[in-house]
């Protein structure tokens, strides 16, 4: 997401933009939901510091304010570094808000069209029956009315032989939560549908269901299969795993709703999900439509530095090597999944340009043992500090060394290669990627224009 956002904005600014990519990014990995900020970093007990702020954050702006107050070096904080002291908060909020609008506009009408907005966090239901705070979600994945009426009846519909979603367990987990909180719906049921894209009711993957539903006429069978359960239970809402299609999901949702006369929405699935696939595809198209060139299968391996500038970047394809000489470079190589960072028992390193990585506390991370930056609990609000390691940057998102000096004047970075945020626990992943990507992309574009 960071690279695509940066590349797209650079291309939109009239620059000749080349994206080198090997492997797909966190975008494809994601659930497709664009989280801005849901929880404070590092399991901080916010009550002590900001007693009036509710956790999880009710709105992205609550969250951003809290972060800017307590964690000024969080990537969101860096966005505001250039602003006057009294305008930092407002400038960050304005940037994030604008980033959201930018993305919504670009994806409008695409297979990953979004709803939601900066004014609030929303709580979609996951395939585990839990809910999570996020900001934007694909239009197919949200029901505005679900929690509105105490008489609502929700039915979770799964598919036989599709192990990625178990309707019964989800129903139980979700229902117990609703009963605990007292929020509607209070009546929740489940059903299992028999849809087999290849004629066998076993080993069915999400992607093959989605491809199956992209075919014309596939909604007829699906609607018929759901209908009897809806009637039986008197359901007002149907939740299904996010497999309603890759290109056709929105049309399919509309068609189902028409056929069934109830609201239908997709759940948030564990990655890598079909909505993540849609988002990746839509973002790739956005980049290409903006005039960018995507060079897939090429891994940036190293760069040649001259004075305080990167002169060229060397990239490797399976059996060829290319050297590219750009005016500016944006590094959006991700964290451990993306391969931007690697670690052994002696320390963490940045893989492409051998930049200096830092810990989540902004200390040099070249000689830290990863295990000491993990938590004894696998899953807790404290998270694992090692996942907050990355690069430290200046106010323009240029990576800096131990003395605070930029490694190169024309090198910028964005996304999860940045230090001091842990997207999994904060629920801030694609939001930071988007916001920092746009910021770094604009900075790089500005510089490229100045150079020429």
């Amino acid at each position, binding site marked *: 997401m960071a690279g695509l956002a940066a590349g797209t904005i650079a291309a939109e600014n009239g620059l000749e933009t080349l994206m080198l990519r090997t492997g797909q990014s966190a975008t494809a990995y994601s659930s497709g939901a664009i989280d801005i900020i849901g929880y404070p970093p590092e399991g901080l007990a916010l009550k002590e510091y900001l007693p009036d702020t509710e956790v999880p954050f009710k709105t992205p702006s609550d969250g951003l304010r809290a972060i800017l107050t307590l964690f000024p070096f969080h990537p969101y904080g860096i966005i505001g570094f250039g602003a006057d002291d009294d305008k930092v908060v407002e400038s960050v909020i304005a940037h994030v808000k604008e980033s959201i609008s930018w993305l919504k506009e670009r994806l409008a009408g695409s297979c990953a069209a979004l709803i939601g907005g900066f004014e609030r966090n929303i709580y979609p239901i996951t395939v585990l029956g839990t809910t999570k705070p996020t900001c934007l979600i694909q239009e197919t994945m949200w029901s505005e009315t679900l929690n509105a009426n105490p008489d609502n009846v929700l039915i979770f519909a799964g598919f036989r032989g599709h192990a990625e979603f178990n309707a019964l*367990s989800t129903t139980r987990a*979700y229902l*117990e939560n609703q009963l605990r909180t007292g929020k509607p719906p209070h009546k929740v049921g489940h059903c299992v549908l028999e849809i087999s894209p290849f004629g066998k009711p076993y080993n069915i993957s999400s992607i093959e269901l989605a491809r199956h539903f992209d075919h014309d006429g596939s909604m007829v069978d699906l609607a018929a299969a759901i209908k009897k359960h809806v009637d039986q239970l008197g359901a007002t809402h149907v939740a299904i795993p996010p497999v309603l299609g890759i290109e056709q999901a929105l049309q399919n949702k509309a068609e189902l709703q028409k056929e069934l006369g109830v609201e239908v929405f997709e759940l948030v699935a564990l990655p890598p999900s079909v909505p993540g696939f849609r988002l990746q595809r839509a973002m790739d198209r956005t980049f290409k439509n903006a005039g960018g060139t995507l060079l897939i299968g090429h891994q940036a391996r190293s760069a040649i530095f001259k004075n305080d500038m990167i002169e060229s970047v060397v990239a490797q394809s399976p059996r060829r090597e290319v050297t590219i000489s750009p005016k500016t470079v944006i590094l959006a190589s991700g964290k451990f999944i993306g391969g931007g960072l690697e670690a052994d028992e002696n320390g963490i390193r940045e893989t492409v340009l051998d930049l200096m990585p830092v810990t989540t506390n902004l200390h040099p991370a070249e000689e830290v043992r*990863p*295990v000491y930056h993990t938590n004894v609990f696998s*899953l807790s609000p404290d998270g694992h500090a090692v996942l907050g390691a990355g690069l430290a940057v200046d106010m323009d998102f240029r990576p800096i060394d131990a003395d605070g000096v930029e490694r190169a004047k024309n090198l910028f970075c964005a996304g999860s290669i940045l230090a001091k945020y842990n997207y999994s626990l904060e629920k801030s992943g694609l939001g930071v990627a988007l916001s920092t990507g746009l910021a770094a992309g604009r900075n790089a574009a500005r510089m490229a224009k100045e150079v020429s």
Partner: protein
Amino acid sequence: MSESDFDVVVIGGGSTGTAVARDCALRGFKTLLLERDDIASATVGTCAGMISSGLKYMDEPEIVDMCSEEVVHLNRIARHIIMKNPILTPILELSDLSTGGNFAAEYSKRAESRDVPPVMFLEPEAALEIEPLLNPDLISSLYFEEYFIDPFRLCLLQALDAQENGAVVKTYCEVIDIVVRDSTVESVTFYNRVTGEIESATTKTIINAGGPWAHKIAAQAGATLDLRLNKGAHVILDRRVVNVGVITKAVDGRMIYLFPHENTTLLGTTALDTWEDPDTLVATHDEIEYLLKSIEWIIPSIREARIIRTMEGVRPLVPTWKVPEGEVTRGYEVIDHESEGVSGLVSFTGGKLVTCRHMAEAATDLISQKLGVESKCTTHELPLPGMESDVDVLSIAKEYDISQHALERLRARRGTQIMEILDLVKEHSNWRTTICTCEPVIEAEIRYSIRNEFPQTLNDLRRRVRLGTGPCQGTFCTYKAAAILADELDLTGEDYLVDILDFRAERWKGIRPPMRGPQLAQEEVAQGLYACVGNLDQIETEYDPKPWEEVG
């Protein structure tokens, strides 16, 4: 005799306890097996599974004889869960060559009976062709063959066979008191962790097979037991990084090994005396480094291999003190506490996986004598469940439309029992679905196991079907298997989520200590699933912290 009245109560569901329960049941004693956790959940669950011929203990010929004979017995009763382990011992220094020669002579004496060749010597070029990762400076290599057994399946099959023969097997039942009256045991009281109730059983004989907790169990009867607890760590590497097993000298002159095992490689072990609660132990950085450093001499590229986790276990050694661990006998002792005024209580110290059946035979002989019954041991003759005949994987793969590899893995775990699982598929077509993609494990096996092998948690399922033991360590199967467990056991939504958290915690216990390399990316993925999307890091549940978490 009432339902809570038993001839024998066996405490401890490890390799020895389950072997004793099986032997007692086969000899017709009314037997109760009590295990505070799950079958094979402690010492035996952290071993490599090698049923060694006793090669490390060449100066104890009678133990070597015993081990060697037990290998023959195990091959007779459990062939379906046994694999051959060809081993190279590369020699880098001349001085090690003569030690190797002595070992070769002693080993080779007993080789034929085990159906393995005598120790052979290979030229360096030959050894390097077999194992290109070896240090090219080697001057010679010993080659010999040993066997592996699936230690989890062995214990479980012993327990199931005991059950089949009338024994009552109760897991998650922790003994909290042993009542002794007139210097004779009368009953045991235990806490059932599944039901939350306190239960008791009367008996005149108790076999204490509590492993590293045996001294605590003895104390509940007012008896004393000295044990030398010694911990050992394994590093588990992804896939088979070596073609054959490699044994070499560690930094301190002990022997360590690198064994390809199933679809992983095991590097072990350390040996350190310990006084910690075994439940809280995890591998330390020093132990991991000891193993890597030691093997690095002989496999210089070992650090490039992916470490997926570590495991730490505790050996309940015979209490010989003031000698190095390696000099403590690998034999065992059966201790009759009658001499100290607790009649009816018998405890074990020492022992090894390979001798578990032998230990059971000795203890059961003693019980027979105490109960005044004449009985004959048959545990070395009667096969364990699943060994009836060979399984033709290729033809059943066609017949049932299941991948050959999934069935081959299933066969290796279960032998002919595979047919009972496939019967389920006939009825439930969709249970062919792969749940754990690393091993792989299909839904039918999980359902079968839940219905027939009394697992209570995903971790119990892991021991039975190898769920979540691959490189992803349950990242992608935990939530799927949890849903099946919840369905079969009719659990609440809360329990379903807690089961996910519990299994994550248990996997993380082993993943965390060696955390580095690709496992960091793997953990980022796992956090992506369960924290970022599932929100399980933030929502409140009734999760109970684990012993190692409380001290960590």
